[in-house]
């Protein structure tokens, strides 16, 4: 059977793209390497979430072992475990993309219709003051005192049940209410009802495009499987798509393959308060920095938290000292800085598919990090923290680049029409095409790029 479209990868890009393609009546196959969980089958504990929803059994490391990368594997991809913060890019982000790639349609005027369509297809909620929990209040009040601008987050969610006492930190392992507007909820399950064919637990390792169709090959339950589509769109994320492309032999034709990797390195610090903060209760994240000077300096602050295992991992002390910190779990205030990093990283892949990630922090990254951490310290001290745990562990959640879009085939992997340079039947539509780090949550834009490609393919 030859499908009209095969989408490989079901995260933010693949989910929205397959939804819009399927809606047109085309015969679409969505393939995912991970399992197909539903709201009632997601892991129920933090330990199982890490073990079963992430590649590498929890965390993957860069070559130097300094930075951890969190990369998910299940239908819905990273959108299942992320906070589903839905931000449009600003002119700064698009101007920098345009300058780096030469792609003229990277601008808010062109992207507006795609953003609008995706926003209309999701349930979005902007937090209100009465929804703030103490972690947010401490952050906002201290920002006010320091003159830092902050704002409420806009999140994809329909009915989180916070007023009924639901603690949303649990949804970092998959939302068991189908409230969070992951790709699974907002797009895939809807498309499934309209005939989208979904094949899970199938890992594609080779793509073979020709002039009329594209064949793909992979493993399903240990057995070789192949599929064929008139057009194949890779959406396996920065690591997954770069891996498929490299294993398919494109590195010799496209020297930029694997390059320009960025990840918004994130550093979380903990401030200990005298009264309970209970940052894990209710809607645990509602505000973030909105200070133009922070944006100009290349960082943003988010008011985050996590469950005990993750918080324990932040504190690089052992034994009784570690336990004494953990005993104050309910008293922790938490803020992270996400750095708008330079895209100097590289995703390398050997012929067996083993990935090696080279991701040093540049001097500019370190300067941005230090400015952000100074702002965190100012906020925590102003909020009355009696001690600050300055974690030196950092990680990347927003994995971007490796197959960047551009007009020059010597510096990019896909052209402005999302086509792999020199190929008529092979496309890429995920965060791997990002020319550089936007410094803004990438989810909404990935989905909107999926809508743009769907519109183009259906013309």
């Amino acid at each position, binding site marked *: 059977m030859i499908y009209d479209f095969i989408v490989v990868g079901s995260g933010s890009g693949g989910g929205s793209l397959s939804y819009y393609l399927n809606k047109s009546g085309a015969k679409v196959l969505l393939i995912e390497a991970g399992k197909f969980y539903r709201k009632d089958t997601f892991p129920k*504990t933090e330990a199982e979430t890490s073990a*079963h929803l992430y590649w*590498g059994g929890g965390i993957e490391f860069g070559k*130097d072992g300094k930075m951890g990368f969190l990369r998910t594997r299940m239908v819905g991809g990273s959108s299942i475990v992320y906070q589903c913060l839905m931000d449009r890019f600003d002119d700064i982000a698009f101007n920098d993309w345009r300058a780096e790639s030469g792609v003229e349609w990277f601008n808010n005027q062109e992207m507006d219709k795609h953003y609008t369509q995706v926003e209309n297809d999701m349930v979005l909620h902007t937090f209100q003051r009465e929804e703030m929990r103490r972690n947010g209040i401490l952050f906002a009040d201290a920002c006010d005192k320091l003159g830092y601008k902050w704002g409420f987050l806009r999140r994809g969610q329909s009915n989180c049940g916070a007023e009924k006492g639901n603690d949303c930190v649990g949804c970092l392992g998959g939302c068991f209410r189908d409230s969070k507007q992951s790709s699974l909820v907002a797009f895939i399950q809807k498309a499934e009802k309209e005939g989208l064919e979904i094949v899970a637990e199938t890992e594609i390792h080779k793509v073979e495009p020709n002039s009329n169709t594209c064949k793909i090959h992979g493993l399903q339950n240990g057995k070789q499987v192949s599929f064929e589509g008139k057009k194949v769109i890779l959406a396996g994320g920065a690591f997954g798509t770069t891996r498929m492309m490299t294993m398919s032999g494109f590195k010799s034709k496209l020297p930029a393959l694997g390059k320009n990797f960025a990840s918004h390195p994130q550093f979380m610090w903990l401030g200990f308060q005298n009264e309970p903060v209970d940052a894990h209760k209710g809607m645990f994240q509602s505000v973030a920095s909105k200070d133009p000077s922070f944006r100009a300096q290349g960082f943003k602050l988010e008011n985050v938290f996590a469950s005990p*295992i993750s918080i324990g991992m932040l504190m690089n002390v052992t034994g009784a000292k*570690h336990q004494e910190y953990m005993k104050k779990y309910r008293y922790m205030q938490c803020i992270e800085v996400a750095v708008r990093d330079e895209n100097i990283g590289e995703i390398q892949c050997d012929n067996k598919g083993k990935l090696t990630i080279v991701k040093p922090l540049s001097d500019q990254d370190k300067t941005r990090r230090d400015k952000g951490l100074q702002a965190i310290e100012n906020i925590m001290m102003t909020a009355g923290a009696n001690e600050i745990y300055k974690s030196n562990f950092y990680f990347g959640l927003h994995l971007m680049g490796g197959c960047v879009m551009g007009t020059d085939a010597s510096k990019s992997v896909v052209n402005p029409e999302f086509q792999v340079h020199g190929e008529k039947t092979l496309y890429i539509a995920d965060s791997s095409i990002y020319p550089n780090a936007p410094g803004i949550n990438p989810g909404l834009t990935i989905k909107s790029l999926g809508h743009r490609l769907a519109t183009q393919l259906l013309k």
Partner: protein
Amino acid sequence: MANFFSTRATKGLLKVGDIYCPKNGDFPSFTEAAGTAYLNNLVANVPADDFSSLNLVLAIFSFLPNGILNWIISAATNSQSNPSDGIIPSTLRQLNIGLRGLCYSIYYSEFTNPNYNGKKPLEVIDFKLNRVVD
């Protein structure tokens, strides 16, 4: 191919776990609290090569005197702030996160030893999570 800890490796993990999470006030020791029966479930998706190395390292740890093991854990912990990109600090950093991740995943979880009747670590830190399903 599923990943299974050897008996030796499990012994090594319990020794390491007791360094990370000793008996301390209300906190039980790792050996008391850890539900080792759940361990294999938590490493099901670790790549086979990585798991094989982990299994071997833990098995070796099971033979080491506590003093030497403490020194290794201390070196792994300190490697986190070592700026060097050399192979030894890089390996130690991965060991640090890998071991701590495994130990905390068991210790701060619901997967406790069924024979342990004392206060569980999640109770000691007073962590309760409400899951409200309509």
